[in-house]
Every structure is written in C-alpha cells, then in structure tokens.
C-alpha cells in the first residue's frame, strides 16, 4: 500500500487530512447508507401504492373481497373467497407432501447417508430449486396431470368415503396437481434449512445418546429432532410462503375456475393465478384491475406474515445458544430408558 508514502514524518491522523481528502470516505459512507435506506423507502412506497390502487375494490366490497364467494368479472363482482381457499388448499397440500419428504431427506443426508455420497446428493436436491417454475408448469400440463388422472380417478372412487379426498370426479387440472408441483418446488428450500438447523445440533448430544446405547434412529429421535424442531418449523413456513406466492406453475395446472371445489381433485383458482390469468383482460376495466391489485395486496400481506413468523422460528432454531434446560437431559434420559425397552 502506498499509504506509508503519503504519511509525512510524525504521521497524521485521519482527522488531520484535508477535507478534500476525506471527501471520498464520506461519499462512500453516506452513499452506502443511502442505498440501504433507499430499499426501505422503495418497499414502503410500493406498499402504499398497492394499497392505493386496490382502494376501489375494498371500498366496494370491503372484507367481502376476502370472505365473499362470488368472483365474476363479467358482472364486475369480485368476492374472492374461492381464490383465498384455493391458495390455502394448494399450499396446504404442498406442505403435507413436501415437509415430511424434505425433513426426511435432510435427516438422511446429515445423519444416515455415507459421508462420500452426501455432497453429490445435496447438489441434486439443490438442482430441484434451479428448475424454473414455468418448466414445472410445462411438465405438469403435459406429463404429470395426464399421467396422474387415472390414479386420481381410482383413488377417488376407492376411497369415496373419505370427505374432501374421495367421492368426486377428478378433473385433469385440480388442487392436488397444483399442490404436488408446489411440494416439489418448496422441497429444496425446506430441506436446505432443515439441514442447516440439524447441523447445529451439538455433537455432544448425539454422542451422548449413542454412548448410552441408542441406535441411530433413537439418536435422531431423541437428540436431533427435539433440538431442531423450531428451526424445521421455520423452514416449513418459509416453504409455505413460497408456495402461497408461486404463480406460473400453478396457473397452468389449477384449472382456473373461480369456485370452491368440494374435494382436492376439483379445479380451483389461487390469488396469484388469478392475477396472471386475468391481467390482460382486466387492463380496460378499472375495477377489475383494482380487484387484481387487491389480490396482490392480500398475497403480499399473507406472505409477509408467514415470512415474519418463519424468520422468528428459524432465528430461534439456529441461534447459537446454550442447550435449553431439559433438552439435553430429557434426550439422554429418554435414550437411556429406551435402551431398556
């Protein structure tokens, strides 16, 4: 560094530099701070504009926009309960299918799988996240939906006694197909966070369990899972946020019918799908556009709440902390008890 050359004998403190020489420093500091502040301002501005643009809809329909069930652009009536239900049902299906598989994958990669196979397998799971959603949509439309239709029909007629699941006639595009594709899409994120959280389980806990004679699964059940439960919950909720907001893959396989389906194999609609699908025709009808902005606002607030709760869980789960009172203790005592069984 040439700094020593510019420092005369005796040295100068930074403060003694001429104001001109200190200028770049201040420009950098305030420039970067401004940049950071700009993001907050931008987010706030977007939020305010979104509220402003959807104001018409909420003035006209009030909470009926969320709770009323009648979405009919031809009569200019926008009560979107069917969209909200569709969003919740598809994300729910995604969680029910995705979370067990993702957590199982994470446990397998971190605790069971041979060390050598770990990195390549983890890379493959990560690649699931690299596939763009429009490609999942394409695959869903031309491969998954047609191939699963016979299976769905068989399932629905065989298990017709189960409410919500069976009894109806499956349509080609439906809640289940959308939920299944969402499950595939959120799997890598849940699994990545679960792996991160599981990696923070102190090895003392695991070694203690093994030393007391626990089998590997007992070690997972008694040392790993109790410790990482909070972080895994957070990861699942981040996945939920992703599922709620996913648009393109869903709009292609949900069927786009603004009604509340009676079972999971009936077609529906989601908040995100309605925006992508009706956006073109809405451009000339101000109230229709406004209704779509309102759908965007509901979506935004929903994902915001889910994400905030999720972050809270994850930060609770990964924070380096002394083992919670009881966690280590119960784990080990239960492991000991388990060895007697």
């Amino acid at each position, binding site marked *: *560094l040439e*700094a*020593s050359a*510019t*420092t005369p004998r005796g040295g100068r403190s930074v403060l003694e530099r001429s104001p001109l020489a200190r200028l770049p*420093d201040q*420009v950098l500091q305030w420039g*970067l*701070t401004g940049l*950071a502040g700009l*993001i*907050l301002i931008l*987010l706030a*501005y*977007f939020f305010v*504009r979104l509220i402003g*643009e959807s104001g018409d809809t909420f003035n006209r329909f009030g909470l009926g926009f969320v709770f009323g069930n009648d979405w009919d652009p031809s009569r200019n009536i926008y009560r979107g309960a069917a969209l909200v239900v569709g969003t919740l049902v598809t994300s729910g299906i995604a969680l029910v299918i995705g979370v067990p598989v*993702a957590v*199982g994958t994470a*446990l*397998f990669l971190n605790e*069971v*799988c041979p060390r050598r196979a770990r990195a390549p*397998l983890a890379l*493959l*799971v990560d690649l699931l996240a*690299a*596939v*763009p*959603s*429009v*490609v999942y949509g*394409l*695959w869903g*439309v*031309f491969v998954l939906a047609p191939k699963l239709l016979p299976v769905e029909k068989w399932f629905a007629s065989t298990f017709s006694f189960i409410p919500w699941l069976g009894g109806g006639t499956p349509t080609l595009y439906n809640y289940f197909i959308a939920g299944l594709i969402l499950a*595939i899409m959120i799997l890598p994120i849940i699994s990545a966070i679960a792996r991160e959280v599981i990696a923070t389980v102190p090895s003392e806990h695991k070694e203690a369990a093994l030393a007391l004679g626990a*089998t*590997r*699964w*007992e070690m*997972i059940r008694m040392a790993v899972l109790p410790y990482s439960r909070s972080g895994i919950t957070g990861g699942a909720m981040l996945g939920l946020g*992703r599922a709620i*907001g*996913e*648009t*393109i893959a869903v709009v292609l396989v949900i069927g786009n019918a603004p009604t509340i389906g009676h079972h999971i194999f009936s077609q529906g609609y989601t908040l*995100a799908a309605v925006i992508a699908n009706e*956006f073109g025709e809405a451009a000339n009808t101000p109230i229709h556009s406004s209704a779509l902005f309102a759908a*965007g606002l509901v*979506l*935004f607030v929903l*994902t*915001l709440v889910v*994400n905030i709760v999720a*972050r809270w869980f994850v930060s609770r789960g990964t924070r380096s902390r002394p083992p919670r009172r009881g966690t280590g203790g119960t784990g080990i005592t239960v492991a000991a008890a*388990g*060895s*007697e*069984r």
Partner: protein
Amino acid sequence: MSAIGMPTVSARRRRTDVIMRGTLCAAAVIALIPLVFVVYYLIKKGIGSWSGQFFTSDPNGNFLGYPGGVRSALLGTLEIVALATLIAVPVGIGVALYLTEYGKNSLFANVVRYFVDVMTGVPSIVFGLFIYIVLVLAHVGGGFTAWKGSIALSLLMLPVVTRAAEVVLLLVPDHLREAALALGSPRWRVVTRVVLPTAGPGLVTGSLLAVARGMGETAPLLFTTAGAFGLTFNLGAQMNALPLQIFNDITSPRQAVIDRAWGAALTLVVLVLIFNLIARAFSRKSRMT
C-alpha cells in the same frame, strides 16, 4: 443388557432402526424422483426441436409451417437479465458493504437486514405488480418495455445478492482491515482495495446465483416487458424472453408450438444450470483461499 462387552440391542429396537433408516433413505429417493422425471422429459421432448433453425429463427405466429425458433427469446432473456444484473449486483453488494462495514449491529442496519430478508419472501408476481403500477401504468417512457422487466427482476435478485455478499464480507478477517487502516489508508481504500478483492470469488458466486434465479422468472416479466415475436436490441421496446415464450406456447393448440415450448424449456434449464455450475465453481475457489 448383557453383562459384559457388546450391549445387545433388542430385536425390536434394531428392527425399528432399520425401518426408520430405510424410511429416511426412501424420502431422499422420493425427493429426487421429480428431478429425474423432469430432466428425462425435458431431454426426450426438447432435444427433438433443437436444430440450427431453432436457434437462428424468431417465432413468426404463422398458423402453418415451421412456427419459428427461440432466437429472439434467448437473446431477449440475456439482454433483460444482463441489465437486471447491472442494477442488482452493484446495489446489492453496496447494501451488503453498508451492513458489514458501516451499519454493523446498529438499529438501522438491523432494520435493513430484516427487510432484505423479507424481500426474499415476497412473491415474484408482487414485484411485477409493483413495477406495473409504478412504471407501466404511469407510462414512464412508454408502456411495456424490456427495461421495466429488468428492474422487476433486479428487485428479485437484490436480496439474493445482498444476503450472499454479507456472508462473504463477514468472512474477510478483521486483521486485514486493521492492517490497512494502520498503514494510514483511508476507509474507502480499505473497502475497495482490501475488503472487496478478498471477498471477490464469494461475491461472484452470490451474483451468479442471483442471475440464475432471475433468468427463470416469468411472472414479473408478464406485467412489464409483455413479450413480442421479433428480435430487438432496444431495451425501450417490448421484448421476448424464454420464460414468456414457453408460457405462451403451452396454451397453443398446435403441436409444433408445444414442441417448441419443450425445446425452449430445455434451453432455459441448460442456461440456468450453466450459471449455477459456474457459481459453484467460484464458491469452491473462494473456499480454498
């Protein structure tokens, strides 16, 4: 428990252990099944439409004959993403520099950090709506234009860049900063000559992952660049992009157009994969130094 030596594990516990290990292994296999199927069908249905003509012709919208290829979409994607990267990477790294070099654990820095995190969870379609309301409805420099799509994408990419950059900037050892400061170099020199070069490969990784993420997004482009058929290098006009073209082709009744969608999807996945792999190569490099 046997008296001395190997503790015996009861058959029931051993069975449970084997079954549960098998279940976990099955979960991992199930997780990979969709990947295998997606890749299999992409190659099976997509490779057939790849040809010289496929990459050198634009979609033409004719009802008969060859429907055209993906040239305008491929170049459009690259143009839009390049501009988005030019916006997102400097701003994203700038914010990360603020967080690690100046803000640290101050209240304002934590608020910024929190909202950058929140931004990663905002659905891409909502960013599209934001830009639609602020720039397209307001007719800032025309209606639907490619550069508005770039801005929407850059909003998506920004938190990815910032989060990745913050992690690697924090890894730069403090003694390097202190050594440079002790030699009398001003703060901005420390940042530009010591901190940024040290974190270099890691910053590249984060940026490339953000590029890969932005490349595949459809929803934000739908409301901002709107798509087109012809090839254009004018960022102030409507522009075609691979995800947009695939999305529009899926609903076509023509088999030739659907085949083109598969070919375009394969192209897009290969493109995203290339950026992902380059990013990983850089991250390995940064881990070695």
